[in-house]
């Protein structure tokens, strides 16, 4: 049976575990732990998860002494020299392919694009919101909608 503190705020256990609570809140939560076996178990489980994730991250090392710098710096140099090479013979960069292959590839690509929904209508604004209906028993309200990202603010007035 969950007591009030964790019932009202499920993420308290995470905040406590991650050391994000204030000293007072931390103290309060510690006392809660003494009477809540579920939260105490959660903390133990979180500890196990952290341990496993830490082990995994050690396996995911790029490799001792390996640096991405050589590849990055050569890419940067390439870009720099390509920019200054613009005028030099472009033709050598054109790849020759048989004509029918080009058609087949573009047809396949079109099919894939179609089924992946890329031909759908344009991207929606990042905060697009459509108010399908709205009412307020005792208050007036104003609606603001931003033209660029669609942000909608419904301002209920006193």
């Amino acid at each position, binding site marked *: 049976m969950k007591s009030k503190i964790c019932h009202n705020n499920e*993420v308290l256990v995470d905040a406590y575990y*991650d050391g994000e609570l204030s000293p007072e809140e931390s103290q309060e939560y510690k006392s809660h732990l003494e009477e809540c076996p579920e939260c105490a178990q959660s903390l133990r489980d979180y500890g196990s998860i*952290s341990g496993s994730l830490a082990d*995994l991250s050690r396996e*995911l090392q*790029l490799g001792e002494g390996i*640096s991405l710098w050589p590849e990055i710096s050569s890419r940067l140099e390439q870009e720099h020299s390509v920019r200054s090479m613009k005028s030099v013979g472009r033709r050598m960069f054109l790849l020759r392919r048989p004509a029918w292959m080009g058609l087949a590839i573009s047809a396949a690509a079109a099919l894939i694009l179609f089924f992946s929904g890329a031909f759908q209508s344009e991207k929606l604004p990042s905060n697009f919101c459509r108010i399908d209906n709205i009412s307020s028993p005792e208050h007036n309200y104003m609606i603001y909608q931003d033209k660029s990202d669609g942000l909608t603010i419904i301002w209920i007035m006193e």
Partner: protein
Amino acid sequence: MSTLKEDRDLVRSCLEGNIDDFRGLVEKYQQRIYLVVYGIILNREQARDLTQEVFLKAYRSLGKFKGNAQFYTWLYRIAFNLALDAKRKIANRVQVEYDDSIESDNSENYFRSRISRPDQMALRKELYDKIIKGLGALSDEQRTAIVLREWDGHSYDEISKIMNCSTGTVMSRLHYAREKLKKEIIPYL
């Protein structure tokens, strides 16, 4: 903190044309950016390539870095956005090619494991596969939050700046990620 001052100095130096100082920044952050990127796309080859792209993009945009925020927050935000973009381009909602083998191609890393018995190695590999599968079942946002927290030790505030969300959202993403991972990993431990 001396780290922050160093970053800012290195950035200023790069902008003055000293490309070698960018090397310092690359080598300082490459491993950590790689982990964050891996956390999003769960494929090591692609993560390695993308990590390069992150630094290339950072270099090209260095002039835009205002220096008011911390450099690493800015860099991580680039990594987060780039990896997310790449993943979504690859396959909308379709299973991404996860690493099915955690055996390192660098055999030195493999043998450096504390456990040396073959059967224990196999068990360990199975556990890693379970963890990766568990990570794969999370949303991109949940996975990024847990990776930033567990693999890179960022505070909620830092994570909220990197992921451009509220700290409340960070907490909920972490909470859900942990609850889901619990189901996958705990029975296995």
